[in-house]
């Protein structure tokens, strides 16, 4: 663990010494909870519609598929017309696009970014690498099944899938959301221990509280 995250004894300005434990003092340690929808179904339906029509993607290019996302912003494909936008910060994004294989190192960042998004939030796996490892099935440092680590809502198969496939995937995602099936965040919270165990199995230097708020 980084030295900065270890416990340390600090002397305050008044000369009194006390202990600082960064992981406890600087991070929120609460686990994720299951977030139910709106109490009134019609409201939840409205929200689901809105969620479907306003998909904000976290602009986090994780693998080689990231290159396929750029054309979506161009005049040729223009995903904006479907209510799809890219946000630079996970706080404001709803959809985490895992665009290709994930090395364990990137996985750590991807997990953090996912956890910092607000629910309901969705994960889309792009390309076969996210499904079963693809051509890197025996690689020593990529993960094979994204689903073991993050609650994937949708896979878009292909190596790599073309932008048109992505657009099609968005449409499917919208359907899922509108049908109220985009509950990956709650699944993650329910099976948090399982996911965390899986994650920690490949990420050996997990040096934060379990859930990154």
């Amino acid at each position, binding site marked *: 663990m980084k030295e900065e995250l270890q416990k340390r004894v600090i002397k305050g300005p008044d000369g009194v010494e006390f202990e600082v434990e960064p992981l406890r003092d600087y991070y929120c340690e609460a686990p994720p909870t299951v977030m139910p929808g709106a109490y009134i179904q019609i409201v939840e339906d409205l929200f689901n519609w809105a969620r479907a029509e*306003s998909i904000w993607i976290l602009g986090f290019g994780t693998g080689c598929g990231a290159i396929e996302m750029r054309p979506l912003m161009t005049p040729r494909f223009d995903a904006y*017309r479907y209510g799809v936008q890219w946000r630079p910060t996970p706080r404001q994004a709803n959809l985490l696009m895992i665009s290709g294989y994930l090395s364990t190192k990137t996985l750590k960042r991807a997990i953090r970014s996912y956890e910092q998004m*607000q629910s309901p939030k969705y994960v889309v796996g792009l390309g076969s690498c996210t499904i079963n490892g693809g051509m890197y099935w025996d690689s020593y440092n990529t993960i094979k099944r994204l689903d073991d680590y993050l609650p994937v809502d949708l896979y878009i198969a292909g190596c790599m899938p073309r932008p048109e496939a992505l657009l099609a995937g968005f449409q499917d995602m919208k359907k899922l959301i509108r049908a109220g099936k985009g509950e990956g965040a709650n699944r993650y919270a329910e099976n948090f221990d399982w996911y965390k165990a899986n994650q920690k199995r490949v990420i050996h230097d997990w040096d934060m509280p379990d859930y990154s708020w």
Partner: protein
Amino acid sequence: MEFDWMKIPYALLTLFIVVNYGFLLNALIQKIAARVGRRYGIPIWQNYVDLIKNYGLRSSITHGAMFYLGPVFRLSGGVGLLLFVPAIYGSYMFSNLSFAGDLILALYFIFFGTLGMALGAGESGHPYAAIGVSRGLSQVTTSELPLALAVFSVALQYQTLSVTEIVAAQQGGILNWTLFTNPVAVAAAMLSFLGSMMRPPFDVVLAPQEIPIGPPTEYHSSYLALMQTNRAIFPVAKIVIYMNLFFGGASDWPTFFLKVFLIYLWSAFVGVVFPRFRVEQSIRWFLIWAVPLGILSILMV
């Protein structure tokens, strides 16, 4: 104090109209900008959907009290700004709460939201937010200067600080507009306007990838929804001031919509044409190009 309580529903009505107009106007401008890039652009109602979605998000986090207050300040600033300025000239109904203060109140109230937002962003503890604020405040010191000079020039010209009286003085034909009676001031003000709309070339404050959108980088869910609402209100409210000061005001809603749209279009127009300035570049730009115009305008009055 006698207070006409009917002013409250009237003001709310104005607010309602402006919010909706603002949402649509924003989308329209975005669409126009997209069209310049040969894209189709977002649906015209996209901003409504985004708003509902953001309210509909189930989870949210908070960094502390000021984190709450930031968006509240922001939206209060927008709403207040709108309400302190008469929207429609000659209409009692849409004169809003302009009895509370004159032009100066409006000008200074612009900062209410800015300040609050900056504080909220600071509370998040995010360095990018602070960097964004640093850039934004740096830029605003010079970008507001030509406007201040132009306003002073106009106030000198009409010998009043009352918005209503300034508009009244511009009635009776397009040539009575400040645009024609005091073109230099208007030029200065319109350059300043570019700086305040967070559009290129003056949008380094929000640099989306470098400092993920700057101050609001930690904001989400309903916080963001509040700020989105403000994004609908605030530009319109601000443009209303420009419209009243320089473009003869509006005596009915269609004129209002048209003029606001056209003024807004000016910043969009410049924005799609020019690339981004660094902060010090924009500071220099305003000081070199816009401020002298402003000075000229107060000397010429």
